[in-house]
């Protein structure tokens, strides 16, 4: 109780500066979260690819659709991928498929169908994933799906749900969800100049396994389209000549990049979109940090007079320092709590479009670690500024200044 009363000596008449400090620190933390989140989003796909990919991968990107009619283009695409798969040195061609004629709660949603190899190669940010059966269908005939997107927040993993596909109701069983911000393989890019984020992007839809059983369940009335790009997975002991032959084959309809080539292209400067997107939050973060530092110095400087009075009354310099740094650190922790609330509520805020869904952030363990390090830096300022100020202006010097 005594300590709080003494703290009030420093806090009283300081509402404005404390609010300003809180706003600046919150701004610094929020902009840093923005920057880190954007950076992580941009590099998540790169990380996913680098960590899980290997030099047996070649990604194909067609120069355009193989036909004006989507269904015909899919068939040609499928035929072409089978030709590639038959080449020496090729273990498998991994494609992504999708269905368009599907509705959830009267809203149109595509359903993606992944080869099992794709899910094995690129483990995603799952929540409660129970795994697929080998057929992708439960024993009682439900289509197993992974749900991606906050539209499906009302569905529970393990509890059946329904979608209307090709004019008929299909019962489904969610076996897992993808965590925010719902980044999954897409392979819908065509044309040259592709980078890794083009192949892995935000998708809010159900994902099922591509098997003969799931195709049968979905029905003959449903058209399954093949996404334009695909991944060629080479045999373990492929030769250079086999690789060259695969690339030459792929060049008939588009371009191809090996694992390393795609990484290099993604890392090539200038990555204009990424730099432009990151520059603004980074600049705001730096400005807010400098402003916080300046206001901290001014606020502590103004409080040195009170510190001098307490010194006369028997308050040690150490105790004064703890009060002053405690105030700044307290502001910091409040700002951190606000930021934590923002991070927690971000999916909800985006779901209700209070914050735009175009703000592509990924706040995962890595980005939280980076934000945590930045928070420690701000707390270092909170403890460092009073220490430096009290070293420079001892209570006696503050008192002499008051005298003058």
């Amino acid at each position, binding site marked *: 109780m*005594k300590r709080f009363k003494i703290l009030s000596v420093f806090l009283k008449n300081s509402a404005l500066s404390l609010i300003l400090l809180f706003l600046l620190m919150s701004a610094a933390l929020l902009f840093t979260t923005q920057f880190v989140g954007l950076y992580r989003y941009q590099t998540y796909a790169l990380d996913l690819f680098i960590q899980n990919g290997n030099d047996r991968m070649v990604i194909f990107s067609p120069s355009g659709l193989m036909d004006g009619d989507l269904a015909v283009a899919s068939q040609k695409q499928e035929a072409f991928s089978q030709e590639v798969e038959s080449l020496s040195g090729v273990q498998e061609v991994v494609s992504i498929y999708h269905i368009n004629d599907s509705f959830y709660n009267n809203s149109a949603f595509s359903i993606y169908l992944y080869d099992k190899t794709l899910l094995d190669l690129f483990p995603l940010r799952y929540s409660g994933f129970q795994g697929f059966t080998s057929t992708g269908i439960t024993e009682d005939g439900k289509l197993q799906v992974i749900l991606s997107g906050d539209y499906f927040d009302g569905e529970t993993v393990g509890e059946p749900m329904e979608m209307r596909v090709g004019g008929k109701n299909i019962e489904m069983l969610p076996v897992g969800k993808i965590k925010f911000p719902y980044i999954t393989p897409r392979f819908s890019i065509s044309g040259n100049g592709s980078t890794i984020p083009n192949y892995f992007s935000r998708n809010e839809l159900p994902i099922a396994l591509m098997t003969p059983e799931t195709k049968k369940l979905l029905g003959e009335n449903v058209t399954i389209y093949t996404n334009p790009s695909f991944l060629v997975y080479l045999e373990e002991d492929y030769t250079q000549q086999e690789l060259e032959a695969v690339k030459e084959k792929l060049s008939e309809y588009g371009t191809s990049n090996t694992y390393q080539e795609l990484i290099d292209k993604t890392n090539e400067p200038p990555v204009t979109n990424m730099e432009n997107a990151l520059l603004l939050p980074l600049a705001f973060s730096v400005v807010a940090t400098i402003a916080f530092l300046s206001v901290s110095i001014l606020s502590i400087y103004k409080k040195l007079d009170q510190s001098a009075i307490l*010194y006369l009354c028997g308050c040690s310099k150490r105790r004064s320092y703890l009060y002053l740094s405690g105030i700044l650190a307290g502001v910091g922790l409040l700002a951190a709590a606000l930021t934590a609330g923002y991070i927690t509520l971000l999916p909800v805020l985006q779901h209700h479009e209070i914050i735009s869904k175009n703000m592509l952030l990924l706040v995962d363990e890595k980005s939280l670690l980076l934000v945590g390090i930045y928070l420690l830096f701000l707390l270092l300022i909170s403890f460092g500024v009073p220490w430096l100020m009290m070293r420079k202006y001892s209570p006696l010097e503050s008192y002499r200044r008051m005298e003058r």
Partner: protein
Amino acid sequence: MKQPFIQMREVNKFYPLDKDRFQALKGINLTIEEGEFVAIRGRSGAGKSTLLHILGCLDGFDEGSYTLNGREVKGLGDGKSARLRNETIGFVLQDFSLVDYRSVLFNVSLPLYFGKYPSRKMKAKAMEMLKLVGLEDQAKKKANQLSGGQRQRVAIARAMVTDPKLILADEPTGALDSRTAGEIMELLQTLNRRGVTVVVVTHDDVVESYARRVVTMSDGEIVD
């Protein structure tokens, strides 16, 4: 033989000055018995305030020794020095050094927050001190609502609240008119008659006249 209340021996104090150093106190030898009322006089820059700050454990010194109430002060850490100030010394300064936006009662009770005084008795103790200086009816007012003389009385009440043995006053009447200055000095004299040792730094002859002993300083030395 009883040890003097304050004993300084060959105390030197230096301040850094560019690449050299300036000697603010030169070989100070000072003895003050308990219950004395001493005035330290001298022109501006003589080192009076520097000496007072050392007496009050607000500042350290470089050479020599200083014992206060039988305790060697040199080498005391920040915490012990603060406790010594809190328990033994009260300060009355020219600018009053009050927390302007807090109440008179809070200002008087401030030193009690840093000691072991029980919280439930603090208010009563502070009121007792305000009665002593005749300001018990001003307890709830903010410090900056009082006149200069009243504020200095509050400062004296605060200085006395921990029952210290020593009051150090640095130009306590510097900001006051002559009539109010007289009232303040009489109050200090009253405290002295109750057994409190009072050391006043001043360059005012009238203030000096209240003291029983005058110590004269010049250029960092005691000359008389």
